[in-house]
């Protein structure tokens, strides 16, 4: 038996091989898609079931969202440095303390 005859005996028709690959890929895709659909379908169903069964309460806010950002603009009449009960008076004699740049 020559090697040439052996190769011919095991030769594959390229078109037949191509058809098998297409069919194989299609089958895998179909099976995978079905599996994914079943998986996500069950997830949605589970989430829907839990949401329906759970009491309706507001979700807890994340920590940062709970921190308030102060109002940028305010009415100066309502929020301003407060004046003293009485204005400073002229004084004589040695000072006890001092106010100036530091």
């Amino acid at each position: 038996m020559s090697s040439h005859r052996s190769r011919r005996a095991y030769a594959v028709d390229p078109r037949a091989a191509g058809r098998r690959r297409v069919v194989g890929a299609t089958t895998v895709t179909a099976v995978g898609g079905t599996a994914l659909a079943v998986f996500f379908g069950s997830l949605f169903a589970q989430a829907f079931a839990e949401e329906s069964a759970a009491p309706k309460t507001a979700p807890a806010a994340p920590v940062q969202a709970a921190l308030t950002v102060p109002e940028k603009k305010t009415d100066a009449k309502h929020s301003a440095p407060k004046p003293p009960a009485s204005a400073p008076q002229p004084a004589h004699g040695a000072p006890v303390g001092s106010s100036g740049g530091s």
Partner: protein
Amino acid sequence: MTRTESPARTVVTALGTTALLAVLEPDALEAAERVMHAELAAIDVACSRFRPDSEISRLLAGTATPVGPLLAEAIAVALLAAQQTDGMVDPTVGHAVRALGYDRDFADIDLDGADPLPAPQAAPGWWRVGWDGHSVVLPRGVALDLGATAKALSADRIATRAAAATGTGVLVSLGGDVRVAGPTPDDGWRIAVGDDHERALVDPDLVVSIAAGGLATSSTARRTWRRAGRTVHHIVDPRTGDIPAGRWRTVSVAAATCVDANTASTAAVVLGDAAPGWLTDRRLPARLVDLDGAVITTAGWPERRAA
């Protein structure tokens, strides 16, 4: 430390400046001093941006960080000051102040550096600070500087607590940020006013008396340094990140508290031409000295030279 009688008085160095404490009754001085030292130590640990171990230095950007009660109060006061001044006094000037060269204790600053300053950048804005009273969120790129309010807050706390602890009248001056509390001398607390709180004690521009509340002075004549021939100082205009355009050399304001007084005096320096109207609208007695030495007063501030 130095002490005097009548009223009993002590002066120490603290927070990079001088801390003066006076009490009406000399016997109360020691107890008042204990209050002052405890408060000064606490404010330094909480708010000093020059200490790597301070609470404010350890705040992490981008995450909610719980803070202690004193830093919480200091942040709340700083944000309120920003709100009250529409951002003229803004605690988010931290990077701007550093960029000007004030990045360490003033005593350690090179007072005449050759390197030019980088281009100034406006403060990010106090409203970007997340705050719920207990936790703070600093957005990335935001650094707090509580220098405009923390010292005044400390003066308020020391005076009110020392007066409560001793039952006597107390005056506290932290680098010229003054607060009085408790019983008052018959003629009020006499306070010297000037560009420089230390020089004013011996050579005042003016002496006034107050019976209650606070008196603070902001000045561009003290705490100055030079970079590439340009003179800069510690008061920053948050709108530009640079020193204010410069109408006023020194502004003194009397208010209900030292924080209120210092908030207003700092805002006035930043506001420039608009400052007299802003102070008048808020009935804040003030004395504004322009760069040429001309004086304007508002809301009943007495204009009279010291005798």
